[in-house]
């Protein structure tokens, strides 16, 4: 555990001593703020129209504002995460520091968990910025906190899936551009994999539906914690990290 923490700390230090952390957090906040503003304005107009006696839907700030904002946030992750994970292994290989890690008395699992934990902490810092937006809602309105909490839990887990895929891809190549591009492509594929669901027959559709990383997010954003989705995300993360471990191990054998 000490080793995991030491490695995670070093990862974080690397993020924050380079522009990566600031660029990632900065752009995430910018886009998140934009989506928040856009949806808030829309929500405001709707409620004004309701107030003027025009017929409309039932106004619910959780469903009409926070839920969609979180879904939009997942789109940002799609673009931002490759930048976080692309360097995790490729940089170690390029610098030769991988030789330090692999000849130190730490296990492969500890190295991978350390890197994952480091990336997740950066992600948590990203999400922490959005506390500002939420507190505005709590100051001027009275949203329910429980759906918000489940929404963030879902967002966090989904980010974990992306990061584990990103780590895996980074462990497969020395080239950071290749790592970033491949990571983005895989993320996007996981995103849209169920779009062809309607054309491939019911069984395949169910499978694709289950594979789709966004499909599992919907319930979280509605305030539901379904163990089905929880297990999907957690097992996805575990599988990604497991493959990363195997990839690093095979790299050792091949030299």
């Amino acid at each position, binding site marked *: 555990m*000490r080793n995991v923490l*030491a490695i995670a700390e070093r990862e974080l230090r*690397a993020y924050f001593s380079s522009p990566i952390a600031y660029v990632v957090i900065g752009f995430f906040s910018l886009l998140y703020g934009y989506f928040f503003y856009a949806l808030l304005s829309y929500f405001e107009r709707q409620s004004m129209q309701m107030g003027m006696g025009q017929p409309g839907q039932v106004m619910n700030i959780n469903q009409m504002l926070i839920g969609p904002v979180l879904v939009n946030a997942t789109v940002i992750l799609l673009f931002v995460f490759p930048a976080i994970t692309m360097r995790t292994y490729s940089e170690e290989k390029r610098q030769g520091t991988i*030789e330090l890690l692999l*000849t130190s008395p730490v296990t492969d699992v500890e190295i991978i968990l350390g890197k994952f934990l480091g990336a997740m902490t950066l992600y948590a810092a990203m999400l922490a910025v959005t506390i500002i937006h939420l507190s505005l809602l709590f100051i001027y309105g009275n949203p329910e906190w429980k759906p918000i909490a489940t929404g963030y839990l879902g967002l966090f887990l989904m980010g974990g899936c992306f990061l584990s895929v990103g780590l895996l891809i980074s462990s497969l190549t020395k080239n950071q551009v290749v790592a970033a591009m491949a990571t983005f492509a895989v993320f996007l594929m996981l995103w849209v994999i169920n779009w062809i669901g309607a054309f491939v027959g019911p069984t395949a559709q169910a499978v694709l539906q289950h594979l789709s990383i966004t499909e599992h997010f919907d319930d979280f954003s509605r305030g539901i914690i379904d163990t089905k989705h929880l297990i999907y995300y957690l097992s996805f993360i575990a599988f990604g990290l497991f493959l990363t471990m195997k990839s690093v191990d095979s790299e050792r054998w091949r*030299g």
Partner: protein
Amino acid sequence: MIEVQHLTKRYGPFTAVDNVSFRAESGEILGFLGPNGAGKTTTMRIITGYMPATEGTAVVAGFDVFDKPIEAKKRTGYLPETPPLYPDMTVREYLMFVAKIKGVRKDIKGRVDAVMKRTWVADMSERQCGRLSKGYRQRVGLAQAIIHEPEVLVLDEPTAGLDPKQIIETRQLIRELAGTHTIVLSTHILPEVAQTCKKVVIINKGKVVAEDTPDGLTERLHGSISVYMQAQGPVEDVQRALQSVRGVTRVIVAETKDDAGVFEVDSEKGSDVRRELASAIVRGGWGLLEMRPMRVSLEDVFVSLMTEEKTTDEPAAEPEVANA
């Protein structure tokens, strides 16, 4: 203690290390010598647990690197060919990190300070590793290798890229460390081996071609000592006079300058003819300008071993492995 037995590493059809065995006792410095691409780095990477061997075993401080990697790694310090530094960390931060993952638990700060002092990097402790000069990088690399006080040190070309003063300092440090550590160091610089190592293993194309002490290797090539002489006088007379000295087997005139000649005098095994040679010159009334024993250098041993290899071995393409 390091014990390597029948170590073999294959990459597909290519054999980088072929049945290598050697042994280094506690407190010994073993020099690992060979041309580039001979398999030095690969062997060292196997000893340090960076990569597994295809066949054979490596035991470090009593632990097999494959069966008990964590225990073996705890007792091994490794300086790879390029020091494994994180460019964005300061020297102190970096060494603190290394100390943690190498399993140092008590007084990490004190240990880091002591190591920085020992490797002369204390004045750069707050500088980012990426901004260090080559010499400092190498020394920080050495610092990270010894920070957990390992029993065994594996150094891959520790003096590569250093200036002459730093080379001398680094060799001095390595010799100091030898008292408490078992050291394997690789190099392709021959004098380095003669100056620092007790034992030499010469490797070429993945195979051990010789294992001996530096002196033993020298002796193996030439049974006798030769003397280099420069004398003033008629060259042919001087040559004849030297030839007549008892024990001298051969006198070669290497060079003639105006009224002086340069001679290389071979003598019988076990006889020291220097005194008689000097007397012969004096007796002839000539001037002795210079006289020194000609050591057969390790270069000669090396070249001769490599050429021996070539004649017995069918020529193969020079492998490019080490920096893969």
